[in-house]
């Protein structure tokens, strides 16, 4: 009983000490609050029929530039794209957006096609340089 009380007091003392240390470290900026969210993420809203729609979420700090790649079935033409794609090659089906002066928040992308997506599995990719690490990041987007 007595030992148990001593242990409890010691544990409480250790916890208080750790809290105090954490408080001082936080004051000194030694603790970096790790954000659970990814810096950039993208998901499909629609990938059927004659339309492909995506939502891109940009965190903070935003990268200086971002390239969004969308692969479509080969030979298919784009009738309308919002925002306009910077680059599209119908032979390969590769469409690219070049995004600059980004700010944090969501961005919508839409492509209208001249043919139906007949069950093909389309996919995309995000490419950017992480402003914190300076490393190139590549992320796949799948429906």
């Amino acid at each position, binding site marked *: 009983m007595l030992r148990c009380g001593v242990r409890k007091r010691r544990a409480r003392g250790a916890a208080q000490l750790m809290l105090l240390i954490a408080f*001082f*470290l936080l004051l*000194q900026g*030694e603790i970096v609050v790790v954000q659970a969210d990814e810096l950039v993420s993208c998901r499909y809203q629609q990938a059927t029929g004659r339309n492909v729609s995506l939502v891109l979420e940009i965190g903070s700090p935003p990268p*200086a*530039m971002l*390239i969004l790649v969308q692969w479509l079935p080969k030979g298919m033409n784009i009738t309308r794209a919002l925002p306009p794609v*910077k*680059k599209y090659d119908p032979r390969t089906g590769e469409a690219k957006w*070049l995004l*600059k002066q980004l700010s944090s928040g969501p961005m919508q992308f839409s492509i209208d096609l001249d043919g139906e997506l007949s069950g093909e599995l389309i996919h995309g990719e995000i*490419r*950017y*340089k992480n402003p914190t690490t*300076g490393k*190139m990041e590549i992320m796949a987007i799948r429906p």
Partner: protein
Amino acid sequence: MNEEILPGGSQAVVRIDGTKIRALRERKDLTQLYVATVVGVTTDTISRWENRRYPTIKQENALKLAEVLDVELAEILDVENEPDAPLAEEPETAPGPADVAPKGPPLLTIVVVAISLLIGAALLLKPKTVNEGATPIITARRLLPSHVAPGQSFPVLIRISVNPPGTYSMIVRESVPLDCLVIKGLPSYAALDEKSGELKWIGKATDATIFAYLARPKPSTAVGGQLTFAGAATLKQGGESARISIKGDDTVALQQLHWADDNGDHRIDDEEILAVYDQLEAIAQLGVNELQTDVEDIWAAGGYRWDETTGGFVIVP
């Protein structure tokens, strides 16, 4: 990694020759305001120094003065009139309210002492980081493309970082190859000697400072050669100073390749355009829109080739 450590400085005073200083300043076409800004004093102080009203000044200021006048310290000293009594340090600016000893009620003194004690205690309790209180470590690195074509503009970045952060007076000298024209600097450079190719900035550095410029090899420059860059930065804080050479990239090959095409495959791929934008973003105020458009057009089209007749690039799908 180019690292230099600031040596210790002295707080001695020296007697300067105001007439020589005025003559040197006027010979270099420098204004009193410019000299005052670099040394870190007022124009009135420079005027007093030149008129010999206060011929003795702090040695650290004399060193700064010699630096800005581009002469050795000995050249601006008044050797004929050595002081026989210990030199009194002259005021550098007119005494302001802060120089007057506070005459307040005892309560105010107690409050001030109490606050000082609290601040002192807080500083003592504050856990020190690795570099805190340590001698500053300075690095200076130049970033150049690996190649550039004659007549094509390209960016040159010089990154200076100081750890721990602080505010330092700084002079950056860059020796630009004579085959290269300097188009624009960021921040605006203080001087460019077109005969020697020396580019000079005078300013303040904090923890990370970028000095950049746009350069363009003359169209007549022979392909196959290379451009060589060199430079140094002098940093000063209080009585301490350090001169460090700029490390990093120092040569650019002259080739019929776009500067952003790092692997030389006549294309600008995703990785190359992202790398370029990271650099151009840092120097956006340099007016790099034309360079950005050029890079984007090649990236979007797929490739480029060199046109001998026009001496420029032609975008090809």
